[in-house]
């Protein structure tokens, strides 16, 4: 049986404990594991991880804890978020009735139920052996780590899972006058389908795909992008069933997209990298993932919308909003709470509002309504009703499931056929049948035009190309539309899709392919017959997107060559100056495009290791016709043969500006030795009659000059024999 994969928290716990000082590790293990012997640190870390994976042992340790510590863990269990800032946990502890907010956190750190998020700190490459390069000597010491990013902690999910049943304190109870139970007037609460935020996220994904938003050096959005988020009619437009305006809705969507992983930071830009797993697992999974991300928002708050001064965990609104939802979660299912009372409860408990006089007026009150009736309402987590006493609110069944209060959500009806694809390429998508998976599919292939009770998209060449570019095949696009369409797809739509797909397939660009070069067509046919996963592009070449899937046991590699490397010397010229020998082992692909331009392949003389090409007047003329010049050929010889162009090649290319060869009648004078020839060529009396020196001992003399030369030579006693 294969070994199961460790949970992400296990790895994080191991890494964190490994960065503890040994004494600190033994102190934590003493409380968590309670070892009876002194174990090596590696074993101790193993036992800590085993204990945190053991529900029985966790329950035992939880029983030993002060009840208030259990409240803290239980409250954290209302979210799937496992990383919290220290400030948020202090706020939560104080709100739950622990005036010294830091003490309970230290208790949980010492018990091994909470861990400082230091695993990746100062590390590059492999982590050191456990406790060999400790980063933390004590938790007091850790408080000094607070840098610009602030301090953060993480809690293993097994711990919050076991602590979830802890009853939260009565401090979170609403006063009786703020509750209505089984009130007939409150039967018909308003709730929405929870798709509004996913739809806006889909719109943002399209915007980011076209033009990725940028992050400035302060870690916030560029002004241009902020304006885009605020002005975009689809992104910023109020939802159809809005009960309350969400300030800076577009900016909220943008930050949520980043925190939930829909957009990823790549070198200062926010890139859309595809829809993550929750989008494929239904609305409940997606809403749960979005709820889990809400506590990490830094730039947006429900009171003022976008604010830059709340970075690095100093924003009280995420935890205050979370607290409101936790308090609502304590209500019975048929019980409603007064909205104003919910805010009053949070303000009375949260330390940020303890000194109310010093709180900015815009943040004093009224901020919870945009969160509960805006964000939580649009996520489908709460429902609202108006009755005597103002607005009343409670969690929906889905909200209770998202907050891990209930495991049952009645399955909704299946309206998979929810699209109306029209001949003018518009798609009407009825909300009843929309799912995150369908939204993500449609986002990839059509542009959103209207978001409302019935949404509208349009199929455009660009949007379809992007879908094809993203890996969707034409058949998949067609199948998606057919599967969800209420009527057969109009012929015009089918034709357009086919046309665009055909056009898309006209040019393929292989960014980093593997090219297989065979000695001849026969070998390539044989390879393809044996199942080579490659596309034939000529008689000798086949292209594969990667080497994965190539069974190399079928092949004998004659050479491998990296296309990115610079061209090298890999050709030799025979003595005749016109026969070029390509060394197959060292030649590169570019040579394959160069040689055939001006030389003819000679298969008769070629072997597997050596390919033979011949230069001829015809072949060189072909090269000149295709744009080659003599200087280019000179460069080519220098780079590929390592020496200048051969004389034969130069001769074939023509004499250039020199005079044409002439035929003349000459006498050849042969002398006894080189010294004598030098003297005759140098002494002006004789030199004036010599036309050319032909060699070391041969001189050319024109017929009419021969008597004069004879006369000059006679002066020094030399005679010419016939």
């Amino acid at each position: 049986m294969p070994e199961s994969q460790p949970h992400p928290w296990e790895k994080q716990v191991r890494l964190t404990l490994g960065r503890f000082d040994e004494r600190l590790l033994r102190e934590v293990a003493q409380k968590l594991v309670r070892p009876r012997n002194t174990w090596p640190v590696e074993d101790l870390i193993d036992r800590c991880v085993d204990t945190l994976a053991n529900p029985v042992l966790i329950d035992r340790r939880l029983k030993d804890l002060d009840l208030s510590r259990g409240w803290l863990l239980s409250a954290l269990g209302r979210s799937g978020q496992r990383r919290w800032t220290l400030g948020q946990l202090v706020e939560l502890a104080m709100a739950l009735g622990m005036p010294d907010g830091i003490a309970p956190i230290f208790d949980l750190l010492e018990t091994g139920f909470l861990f400082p998020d230091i695993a990746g700190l100062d590390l590059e490459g492999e982590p050191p052996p456990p406790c060999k390069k400790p980063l933390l000597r004590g938790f007091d010491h850790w408080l000094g780590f607070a840098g610009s990013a602030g301090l953060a902690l993480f809690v293993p999910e097994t711990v919050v899972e076991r602590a979830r049943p802890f009853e939260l304190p009565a401090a979170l109870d609403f006063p009786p006058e703020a509750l209505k139970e089984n009130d007939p007037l409150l039967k018909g609460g308003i709730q929405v389908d929870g798709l509004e935020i996913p739809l806006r996220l889909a719109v943002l994904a399209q915007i980011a795909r076209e033009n990725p938003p940028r992050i400035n050096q302060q870690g916030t959005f560029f002004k241009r992008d902020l304006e885009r988020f605020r002005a975009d009619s689809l992104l910023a437009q109020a939802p159809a069933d809005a009960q309350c305006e969400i300030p800076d809705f577009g900016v909220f969507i943008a930050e949520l997209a980043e925190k939930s992983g829909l957009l990823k930071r790549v070198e200062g830009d926010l890139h859309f990298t595809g829809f993550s797993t929750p989008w494929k697992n239904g609305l409940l999974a997606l809403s749960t993932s979005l709820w889990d991300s809400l506590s990490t928002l830094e730039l947006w708050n429900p009171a003022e919308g976008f604010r830059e001064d709340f970075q690095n965990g100093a924003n009280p609104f995420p935890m205050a909003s979370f607290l409101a939802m936790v308090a609502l979660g304590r209500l019975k299912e048929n019980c409603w709470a007064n909205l104003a009372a919910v805010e009053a409860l949070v303000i009375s408990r949260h330390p940020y509002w303890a000194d109310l006089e010093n709180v900015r007026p815009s943040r004093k009150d009224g901020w919870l309504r945009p969160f509960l009736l805006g964000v939580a309402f649009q996520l489908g987590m709460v429902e609202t009703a108006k009755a005597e006493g103002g607005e009343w609110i409670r969690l929906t069944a889905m909200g209770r499931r998202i907050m891990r209060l209930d495991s049952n959500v009645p399955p909704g009806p299946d309206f998979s056929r929810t699209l109306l694809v029209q001949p003018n390429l518009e798609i009407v998508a009825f909300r009843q049948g929309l799912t995150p998976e369908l939204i993500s599919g449609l986002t990839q292939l059509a542009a959103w035009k209207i978001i409302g009770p019935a949404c509208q998209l349009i199929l455009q060449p660009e949007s379809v190309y992007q879908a094809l570019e993203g890996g969707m095949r034409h058949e998949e696009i067609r199948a998606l539309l057919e599967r969800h369409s209420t009527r057969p797809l109009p012929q015009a739509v089918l034709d357009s899709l086919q046309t665009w797909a055909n056009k898309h397939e006209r040019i393929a660009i292989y960014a980093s392919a593997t090219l297989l070069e065979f000695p001849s067509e026969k070998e390539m046919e044989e390879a393809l017959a044996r199942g080579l996963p490659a596309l034939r592009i000529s008689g000798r070449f086949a292209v594969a997107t990667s080497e994965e899937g190539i069974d190399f046991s079928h092949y004998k590699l004659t050479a491998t060559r990296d296309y990115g490397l610079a061209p090298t010397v890999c050709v030799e010229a025979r003595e005749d100056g016109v026969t070029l020998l390509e060394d197959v082992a060292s030649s590169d692909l570019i040579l394959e495009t160069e040689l055939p331009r001006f030389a003819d392949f000679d298969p008769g003389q070629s072997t597997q290791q050596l390919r033979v090409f011949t230069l001829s007047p015809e072949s060189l003329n072909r090269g000149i016709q295709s744009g080659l010049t003599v200087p280019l050929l000179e460069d080519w010889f220098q780079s590929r043969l390592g020496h200048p162009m051969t004389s034969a090649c130069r001769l074939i290319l023509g004499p250039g500006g020199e005079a044409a060869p002439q035929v003349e009648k000459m006498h050849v004078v042969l002398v006894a030795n080189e010294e004598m020839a030098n003297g005759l060529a140098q002494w002006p009396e004789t030199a004036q009659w010599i036309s050319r020196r032909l060699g070391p001992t041969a001189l050319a003399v024109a017929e009419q000059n021969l008597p004069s030369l004879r006369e000059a030579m006679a002066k020094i006693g030399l005679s010419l024999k016939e």
Partner: protein
Amino acid sequence: MFPPRKAVLARIPVKLHRRVCLVLATDAILAEEILAHKKIAQDFCGRLTGQALLVRPGRLENIVEELQRMGHTPQVIQR
């Protein structure tokens, strides 16, 4: 009886070119049209076959952008 012997297939000689960047057109005329475009002609090393054009290392993005500007919709096949 001996079990039948498996036929041993001879290994096929092949030369491997890694990290090759190339543009593959459906027909030679289209390849010619691409190669004739002044703005990208310099980005190609040459023509490997009638339909396959070798791209100079590092020039891919320019080619994709220019092809899109020309009204083509190339499919970029990554690893």
